[in-house]
């Protein structure tokens, strides 16, 4: 039984069946990739996992509890962090503050009225955030504003913000979309280092086959809202149905 169990999920937008009977099981401490051509329903599925969309039917169990009907912040508090396709950071805040916020969320929960104690007195949180920035090689940029970072650094920062919460599951929505080759390789390297340092379960949506095959242990191929096949990367590469539906149009 995996940490994330998706069973029979359906989602319909008007006449479009975005997800049809999707089953997915993500085992703990693995990296599970979801691939598929444009419009296959990858993002819809991800949005169903984090509370942005509610499936019409089916169940999504995380760590033994249902996530359906919960708000995004509640699902995050359960242990799911999400990296967005375009990095979502706090652009008007400093890099250090960006990483401190998830630390506060982890420690204090969804809301706490800590209005008179000063941030400077929160040594523990600061240490934790600085250590995380050290891990992603951004400690020297701690005083910069989020908006002044390069795209690659924004991505790095967003990952640091997710990882500092020590999530049980990290969801990545095309983490290398629109990145230059060098940045993509950096991201892969970063993700692999993070996995070596701390055991983490990842679920990744990706177009770039290079990224998928250098990270994932299991791959699910989605086509027209239904899982076509789920297997190891080596088997996926040679799978005739996958070639037909997806890989035929991409270079491997």
């Amino acid at each position, binding site marked *: 039984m995996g940490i994330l169990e998706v069973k029979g999920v359906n989602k319909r937008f008007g006449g479009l069946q975005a997800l049809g009977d999707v089953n997915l099981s993500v085992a703990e401490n693995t990296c599970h990739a979801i691939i598929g051509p444009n419009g296959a329903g990858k993002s819809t599925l991800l949005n169903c996992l984090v509370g942005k969309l509610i499936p019409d039917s089916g169940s999504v169990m995380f760590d033994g509890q249902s996530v359906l009907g919960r708000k995004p*912040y509640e699902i995050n508090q359960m242990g799911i*962090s999400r990296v967005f396709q375009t990095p979502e950071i*706090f652009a008007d805040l400093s890099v250090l503050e960006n990483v401190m*916020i998830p630390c506060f969320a982890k420690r204090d929960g969804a809301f*706490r009225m*800590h*209005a008179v104690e*000063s941030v400077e007195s929160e040594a523990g949180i600061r240490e934790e955030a600085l250590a995380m920035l050290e891990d992603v090689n951004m400690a020297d940029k701690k005083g910069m504003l989020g908006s002044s970072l390069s795209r690659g650094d924004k991505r790095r920062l967003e990952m640091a913000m997710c990882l500092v919460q020590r999530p049980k599951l990290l969801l990545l929505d095309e983490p290398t979309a629109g990145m230059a080759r060098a940045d993509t390789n950096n991201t892969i390297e970063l993700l692999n280092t993070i996995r070596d340092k701390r055991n983490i379960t990842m679920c990744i949506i990706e177009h770039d086959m290079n990224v998928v095959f250098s990270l994932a242990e299991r791959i699910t191929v989605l086509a027209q809202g239904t899982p076509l096949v789920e297997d190891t990367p080596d088997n996926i590469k040679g799978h005739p149905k996958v070639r037909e539906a997806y890989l035929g149009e991409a270079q491997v």
Partner: protein
Amino acid sequence: MLGLNRKDLTLMMIVAAMTLLAPIILNPFPSDSAMAQFNAGYPDLMQRFVIFGIFAIGFNILFGLTGYLSFGHAAFLGVGSYSAVWMFKLLSMNVIPAIVLAVIISGLFALVIGYISLRRSGIYFSILTLAFAQMSFNLAYSVLTPITNGETGLQLALDDPRVLDGGSSGGSLPVTQLFGLEMRATTQLEIGAWSFDFNVGYYLCAAIMLAVFYLAIRIFRSPFGIMLRAVKSNQQRMNYTGLNSRPYTLAAFVISGMYAGLAGGLMASMDPLAGAERMQWTASGEVVLMTILGGAGTLIGPVLGAGFIKYFENIFSKINDNVLHSWFAVMPDGIEDFLVTIVHPFVGKGWHLTLGLMFMAVVIFLPGGLVEGGQRIGRFVTGRRNKKAGGAEAEAARKQPAE
């Protein structure tokens, strides 16, 4: 000290010194000189400076930190005033219970309005708050007359119960006081040609403003303050980081509503009457102007903005044609009349024109308000000094983000 870092402590000390010495600082001209009309150091106006300062500091906690632009904050000011006057009528002329009740009632009022309005953001939030404030204004004028005394406004009367003061006080209306210290009591100090007014009411307001300014600094520098800035910056990221933005915004809304109520309560404490026009949308707009003019999201900006607007309202509006003629009296007749005609639309009843032009100039050239103007001047000065010393440090300082 005081749980503030050195920079904030310096700011706090400067503000404290300025407010405590205001009666002197604001009266730089001898009282019988031609420039005396630019003196702002009379009790009534100084009280207004600090009371509107409190109003704007509170507004800035909501607008400056979370970015939610409330267009109905005058409603809380009005509610605070009515509550305070009722306290004077029913309980005592002591200002303490009046101010406390004003803060509590406006806080509750803000909780209700905020709970509903914060379901929307952006322009819809602004419209909802505006609608609530206009509703309050119109209700105060009409159906709530038993509480608000409608058009006349709520005033003291000789036959008010005033339980603690023991009812009637003889033939004249009692005055507001703090344990016997009358709010209107003023000590005049004459030094040579100068005269300075030290007013009890002003110093009460100033002390309270310093206290709530200190509280605002603490909020700005707290984890809660960071969360409010996070709301403004990226609510989506916030929600996916396990934080519920709704209670944060509601808390900020209620806190700023209580600041407004406090300002309203103080207004009534200085002059015990309350009218519905205090809740009108123009009053709500005024605090928005003050905050933006001074610098939204900065600590000192709203206070500067409030002082600026109140100064213009009270000083520029008093410059009439007679005063203008006396200024330009040294000129030949034709030129004198010409100059008076040119200047006339900008002063006296036309002071709004000057204020409007200045507001436009600030918004266009200094989006960070007067505070940004101050920072630019500061950077210019230090930049020139450093250029002599090498200039590398100034470059580094410029690359550091502003707080």
